């Protein structure tokens, strides 16, 4: 079946602009995660949804970052007033349910470049 999809694959924006990154999880997966991967590093957790609600947003770096999942499927990560330090690959993952033994399946990522 189809895996996790993310759009756009690449996004170039200017400092101070607003961006939205979209994630479409595997059908039927109730848990959805956002991670950020900076160059040469491992992914870092941002936020986790169980259904429509954010169950854990402890990884969001500041209040410029926000994510929604209004219908419990597609999620959008929103970044306001982008800064050059926000440049990274943003990864989305989904799993069947909330168990922390469940495998998280990752999408190809969105490469964000802030000029």
């Amino acid at each position, binding site marked *: 079946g189809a895996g*996790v999809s993310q759009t756009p694959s690449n996004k170039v924006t200017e400092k101070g602009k607003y961006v939205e990154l979209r994630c479409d999880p595997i059908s039927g997966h109730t*848990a959805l*995660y956002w*991670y950020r991967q900076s160059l*040469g*590093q*491992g*992914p*870092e*957790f941002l936020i*986790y949804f169980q259904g429509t609600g954010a*169950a*854990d947003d*402890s*990884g969001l770096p500041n209040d410029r970052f926000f994510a929604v999942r209004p219908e419990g499927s597609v999620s959008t990560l929103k970044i306001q007033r982008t800064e050059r330090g926000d440049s990274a690959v943003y*990864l989305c*993952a989904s*799993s069947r349910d*909330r*168990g*922390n*033994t469940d*495998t*998280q*399946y*990752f*999408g*190809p*990522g969105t490469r964000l470049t802030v000029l």
Partner: protein
Amino acid sequence: AQSVAQPEDQVNVAEGNPLTVKCTYSVSGNPYLFWYVQYPNRGLQFLLKYITGDNLVKGSYGFEAEFNKSQTSFHLKKPSALVSDSALYFCAGARGNAGNMLTFGGGTRLMVKP
């Protein structure tokens, strides 16, 4: 607090030789450990995981990993490396008691030479 460490930035091995990619962890409670592989311009692909039970876990593409509680390690192994195994490998851990976030190591680049 939890952390995962991959002490080697790069591992070089000749095709056909066995390979080991090292991972150590510090996770409170029962550790749940994962290995992922990342090819250029692609997302992370799941290889295997340890939850409980047998310390030797077998996964995709002939990879296996051994959970060692006393050494807090979860090294990835393969008996015979292929050139196509060349990629970036990430070890990750999840807390056993609560929380669903994965904590990743910094990654190890595996280079398999013909």
